[in-house]
Each structure stands twice: as structure tokens, then as C-alpha cells.
């Protein structure tokens, strides 16, 4: 009898139940979309922030950092200690290798052009390499110099462009060089004639530099297989107290703390692991990039969390509101039931089961729709899919259950106090 009544209501009151289900669909889809976006936003924004360039540099442990700040002065601490080119690809093999988006080795050198001494950098602009693990990587400095893209004249250096260089715009102007011109670089007895392939505008020290391939620079400097530093761009977790403690001295951690630290993508943990694979290397986070990334990331995530909370509260209230409204609306029918001798609890149970069943159906549709919304947001804003977090289902289900229950309570209380005669009389 109970189930028959339920099915009858659901069928007869189709339009009203559809309306509840519809609101539940909207509310649940909104919360699902927002929660998924919120959980995925950290990763996405982190990738976007990679346009700022590398956040970790690896140098030789005895090489001094005391080079020029703005490229205005030169001289101090010129280094003769080098890292090995063969270690560079090992970077991808560390525990957090998957988080390393991009990396490029750089060899600093100097060459004379028209009697003027100019810094020459050798690097991988674009590099495709197969790792010993069978994995393939595409990397290079191109992705670490996003701000050159806008105003670049000519082309980027390719992997095999040993006879070409890129040059900073102010330097090119001073030397009277244009794209396609050739220039002779002299270093001690070595000499190379190369063609200018691209002219970039950096707004920093690189404006006064010539950039060639690593091979070209190594031959020019007579430093085969050597690099001065490696720039690494990694996705990191913003620092917390543990990370700061570890950055001071990893040995000061307890074994448990050490494990947590090692297995979290803190900049300091990634640095520690890089040092394990790069011989004589010291990896340091570039605080300007690493620290600011953390700030922006934390703020964005917090903002999204607050918006998610607001919209979830909003949809929860809307759902419970509608349920209250639609149950009160049916007072006449329920009054009749009471008049026919139904107990309060029976009516309450009837109403609850009806509403719960409707919510369940609405929730299922809403979840599917919400995933769709999340993907639309992911595709439009970040051009990639947002990963679906399984726990969202559980959270939404629990919230929906309580929202439906809470929404029914005022209506049920109202029903309890109902005087059948009054209702039926139509007051």
C-alpha cells in the first residue's frame, strides 16, 4: 500500500515532482561543477604560472652566484666549474619527474664580435630526447622564455640549428644585425660564423646576449659536454612550515616528516632530488618565481573555495526552499489522508520517501550535468580537461541528503499541526 501511494503520487504529481527534480538538477550540477573546478584549479593555475619561467636553477656547487644583476656590469666570480651535459636528462627520472614541465641546460661564455666582448649562451632551444626509461620528452628554453613570443622577429632556434643564433634586440641594433645576417664569433683561437635566425626583446639581461645551440657554444668555448647551469620549471606545492624547516636542513626532520616532505612536491624536496641526480650540482629555488607562485596559487584557490561555498549554500537553500514550498502546497491532499486516519509519522514518511526519491533522480542527472559544466570551464579557460574528483560524489550525496531532509522538516512540522477539517475546508 505504502509503495503504491508513493508511485501514485510520483506519477500523478508529475509536474510538481519534476519541478523539485529540476531544481535539484540545477543545484547539484552547480555544486558538482564548482567543486571539481575548485579542486582542479590549483593544478591548472600552476601550469599557467609557468609562463614566468623556471623556478629552480641547478648550478655547480662551487660556482659563485655573484654575476651581474642587470647585465650592467660584468666581471665578478667568473666560474670555471661545470656540470655535465649527460646528467641533464636524468632530471626527468627523479621521484617528482612528472612534475617537471620543462628544463634547459645553459652554458655561459663570451665571444668577441667586431672587437667587442659579448656574452654568448649555449642552450637547447627545442629538444626532443628519448629517456633511458623509454619515455620521450620535449623540452627546451623556448617554453621558459614565453615573454619573447610576442615581439620575436624571425624564428626560434631548432634542435639542429648549430649554424644559427638568436640575439637580443638592443644588441642587434648596436651591432647593426638583422635576421639573416651572418656574424663571426671569436673565442681565443676558435672562430664560428653563424647566421642570425631570430631577434628577441627580453627587457632584462638577455637583451645583451647572443644565444646559440649548446653544441655550438661548447665547440666555441672548447668545453665539450659541459654546461654552466640548468633551468628547471616544475609544478610545486606552496611552501609550508615543514618545507621551510626542510629547506634549512633536511637532516633535522624526523623519519616521518622526512617521508612526507620527500613525497610532497615542495620546491625544496624537488631541489633535494635534483641534487641526487646532477653530479656536483646545487639546486636552488628561484624565490622570485617559486614564492610568488605560492602566493597567487593560494589566493586563487581560496577565492574559488569561497565562491564554491557561496554557490553551494545558495543551491542548498534553493533546493530546501522549493521542497518546503511544494510540500506545503499539498496540504489539502495530506489533510485528507489525516482525516482518513493516517498517523503523523506515516504521512511524514510518505512525504520524505517521495522527496528523497525525486532528489535521487535529480541528483544523478545534476551530477552528470555538473561534470559537463566543469569540462566546459576547463576547456574554455585552460584548454584542457579538468580531472574529475571521485570524492565530489560522496560530498554532494551527503549534502543533498541533509538538504532534502532539512527542507522537508518545516513542511512536516507544518503537516503535524494541520487540522484536517480546516485544510479540507480550504482555509
Amino acid at each position, binding site marked *: 500500500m505504502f509503495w503504491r501511494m508513493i508511485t501514485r503520487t510520483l506519477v500523478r504529481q508529475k509536474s510538481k515532482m519534476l519541478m523539485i527534480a529540476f531544481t535539484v538538477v540545477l*543545484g547539484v550540477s552547480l555544486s558538482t561543477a564548482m567543486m571539481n573546478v575548485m579542486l582542479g584549479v590549483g593544478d591548472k593555475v600552476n601550469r599557467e604560472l609557468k609562463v614566468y619561467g623556471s623556478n629552480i636553477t641547478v648550478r655547480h656547487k662551487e660556482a659563485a652566484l655573484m654575476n651581474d644583476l642587470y647585465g650592467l656590469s660584468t666581471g665578478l666570480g667568473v666560474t670555471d666549474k661545470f656540470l655535465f651535459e649527460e646528467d641533464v636528462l636524468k632530471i626527468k627520472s627523479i621521484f617528482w619527474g612528472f612534475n617537471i614541465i620543462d628544463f634547459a641546460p645553459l652554458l655561459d661564455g663570451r665571444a668577441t664580435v667586431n672587437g667587442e666582448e659579448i656574452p654568448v649562451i649555449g642552450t637547447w632551444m627545442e629538444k626532443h630526447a628519448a629517456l633511458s626509461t623509454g619515455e620521450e620528452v620535449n623540452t627546451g628554453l623556448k617554453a621558459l622564455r614565453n615573454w619573447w613570443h610576442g615581439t620575436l622577429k624571425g624564428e626560434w632556434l631548432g634542435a639542429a640549428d648549430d649554424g644559427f643564433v638568436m640575439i637580443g634586440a638592443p644588441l642587434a641594433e648596436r651591432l647593426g644585425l638583422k635576421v639573416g645576417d651572418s656574424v663571426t664569433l671569436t673565442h681565443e683561437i676558435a672562430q664560428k660564423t653563424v647566421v642570425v635566425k631570430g631577434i628577441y626583446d627580453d627587457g632584462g639581461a638577455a637583451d645583451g646576449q647572443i644565444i646559440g645551440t649548446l653544441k655550438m657554444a661548447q665547440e666555441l668555448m672548447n668545453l665539450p659536454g659541459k654546461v654552466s647551469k640548468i633551468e628547471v620549471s616544475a609544478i610545486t606545492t606552496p611552501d609550508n612550515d615543514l618545507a621551510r624547516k626542510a629547506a634549512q636542513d633536511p637532516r633535522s626532520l624526523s623519519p616521518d616528516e622526512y617521508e612526507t616532505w620527500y613525497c610532497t612536491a615542495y620546491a625544496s624536496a624537488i631541489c633535494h632530488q635534483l641534487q641526487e641526480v646532477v653530479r656536483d650540482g646545487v639546486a636552488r629555488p628561484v*624565490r*622570485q618565481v617559486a614564492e610568488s607562485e605560492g602566493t*597567487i596559487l593560494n589566493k586563487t584557490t581560496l577565492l574559488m573555495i*569561497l565562491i564554491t561555498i557561496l554557490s553551494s549554500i545558495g543551491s542548498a537553500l*534553493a533546493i530546501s*526552499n*522549493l521542497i518546503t514550498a511544494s510540500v506545503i502546497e499539498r496540504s489539502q491532499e495530506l489533510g485528507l489522508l489525516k482525516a482518513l486516519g493516517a498517523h503523523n509519522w506515516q504521512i511524514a514518511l510518505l512525504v520524505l520517501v517521495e522527496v528523497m526519491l525525486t532528489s535521487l533522480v535529480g541528483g544523478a542527472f545534476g551530477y552528470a550535468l555538473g561534470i559537463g559544466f566543469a569540462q566546459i570551464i576547463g576547456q574554455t579557460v585552460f584548454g584542457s580537461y579538468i580531472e574529475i574528483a571521485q570524492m565530489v560524489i560522496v560530498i554532494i550525496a551527503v549534502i543533498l541528503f541533509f538538504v532534502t531532509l532539512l527542507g522537508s522538516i518545516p513542511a512536516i512540522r507544518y503537516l503535524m499541526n494541520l487540522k484536517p477539517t480546516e485544510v479540507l475546508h480550504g482555509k
Partner: protein
Amino acid sequence: MANKRRKMYLRMVTSSLIRRASRLIIAVLAIAIGATILSGLVTIYYDIPRQLGREFRSYGANLLLLPKGDARISRDDLTRVREVLGADRIVGLAPYRYQTVKINEQPYIIAGTDLPEAKKNSPFWYVEGDWGSAAKPDHVMVGREIANTLDLHIGDTFKVLGVRWGQAAEASGQNLSAEENRGRDEGDQNFSRRFTVCGIVTTGGAEEGFIFADIDMLDELVGDSFRGDVVECSVVAGAEEMDKMTAELENRLPGIQPRAVRRLTQSQDIVLGKLQALVLLVTVVVLIITMISVSTTMMAMVAERKREIALKKALGAENRFVIGELLGEGVLLGIIGSGAGVFLGFEFATRVSLNVFGRAINFPWLIVPVTIVVFVVITVLASILPVRKVMDIHPAIVLRGE
């Protein structure tokens, strides 16, 4: 007669609202939720570029001012730069003066700057110990590299030697005695001073190879007036605004070469653009869904009044009059609900802004009338649509409950 009718109309509208107090609360609540979300999110959306733009200043100085040729930047130049850029846009503006000094006969660079401004410019510096200040000019900060090389700790002292401005250093002679060479180092053309280390700077960049001191103290030590080798500015501006500013600076200050740090300005535009698009899209999705759910609640509310309307019709009310009554109710509900909602939305936006960015929010006052109008329209539409059908049917059928 007309007066009487109007009185009756008002009484019907108000009494129908008052009589159904519990339903009224539900309706107002629904509208208020919608209005809170609308006004709150739109306010946040409008304020995001300003707020996040400031957050991006944590990447440090995005504008460098270099002197042209042999000229030096003077204090007057700094005041004029401040005027051109506008005080509210400047996060930090720190002049730097670089001076080569000797510590233990090794060359180092001491950077004189306005330390509090440098701190605002570079929030990413990790300083162990304290920042130096103009009040204690003998307390300086040293870069991590220098601290390691010289084995300096906080509280240690060291002595720097250098050549006064406009004087040439005398090289030590090979065939002079040690005594005489020392004399050359400590003669009138030189300065020397003992400093205490108050902080050790870690940045992961070139700053670790410098000693940071107060610029006035350095000027006095070197013995000439203020000279800026470079000025670092942290300015809240996108790439386009930055281009305009550099052009204007170049016009107004001929001795200065402004250079935007393209790495920061360009990248900021890219990332900020994405974040803004994210908030926009989220706002649009939330708003659409909220609007729909507010109108479904309203529709459910009104649908139950079919009987009442039919009764009125049976008593001889015209369709025009019934619709007029619903309209009046809708407007009243819309205004009350959205009025409360706007207030809550403002509260929400302020809380978010304070929590996330630690700053007050700019409330666009236009949002108040817009929200109210939007929700009055939604309420009215949602009230009239479900009863439209009732208008055309015979009252008796509805009253019988079919």
C-alpha cells in the same frame, strides 16, 4: 471611485502577502539568495583585476629606470617619477646605488637602497634575522653567498674599505713595504667602516651576492650626494598601461631610460587574463543556475494560487485586475528580497576580499539597481507564467479541483 479601487488593490496585495506569512518568507528567501549570489559574484568579478593585479606584484619590480649615458638619477627625478606613475599605483619604488668595496682584500658590491621600499618591492626575499633600516645605518643585510663565503652570522661584524667618490685608488706597489701599502689602503682617498650583520638574504638569484645598506649612509660614506644607478619600481599595471607609462616617463624625464621587465608584464597579462576568464565563466554559470532556480521556486509558489484566482474570477474579477494584483505582489516581493540580497551580497564580497586579499573591496553601486530590477523582472515573470493558463479556463473547473 478610482481612489477606492486603488485602496482595495493595495489592501488585496498587502493582505495576501501578510496572510501567507510562511510562504512569503520562502519566496523572499529564494529571491534574497539569488540576489546575494548575483551582487556578490559580480562585485568580486569587477574587482578581481585590481585585487589580483596587486597580488602579482609579489613577483617584484616590473619597471627599471636606468640613467642615460653618464647621467645619474637624482632625488628630484624620483619625485617626478612618482607623479607620473601615480601614488596609488606604486607598490614600491627603490633607488639602488652600487659601490665596489673590499672586505678582506676581496672585492664585493654593496648596494645602497631605501630598505623599506626594497622590502615592498621584493616580498619574495627570505631574510633571516631583520631587515636593515635608516634608523640603524650600521646594521646591514648580506646576501647568502657572501655570508657563506665570509662565514658571517647574524650579529657578526665586518669591515669594508672603499675608495671615496672622485678619487682614484692607489695600487699597492710591489717594492713598497707592507706598512706603506697599508697606508695606501687607509689614506684619505679611502673610506672604511665596520658594519654589523642584521639579516641574511636568500633569494635564489643574483641578490645573494650583494650587501644591502641604507642609501643615505652609503652616500655619506662615499662622500657625494645622492646618486641612483638604477631605480626599481613595482607598479600595478598591465602590459599596455606599462607601455604608456614608459613612453610618458621618457617624455617627461629625458635623462632616464625606463625599461619594463617584459618577463613580468607579459606573463602577468597572460595569467591574469586566464584567471579573469575563469571567474567570469564561473560567475555566468552560477548566475544562470541561480536565476532558474529562483524562478522555479516562485512558480511553485504561485501555482498553488490557482484556486484563489479562479474564485476571484468567479466573483467577477477581470483578468486585467488579477494580473495587476500578481504584478504588484511580484514587484513588492522582488524589491524586498533583492534589497536584502544586495546587502548580504555586499557583506559576502567584503568578507571574501578581506579574507583572500586582505583589502577592502570597491563596491560598484550600479549593482544595486541592476540586481533589484533583474529580480523584480524574474519574480513578475515567474508569478504570471503559471497562472496565465488559469485566466482562460472556466472558473468552475478549477474550483472543482480538476
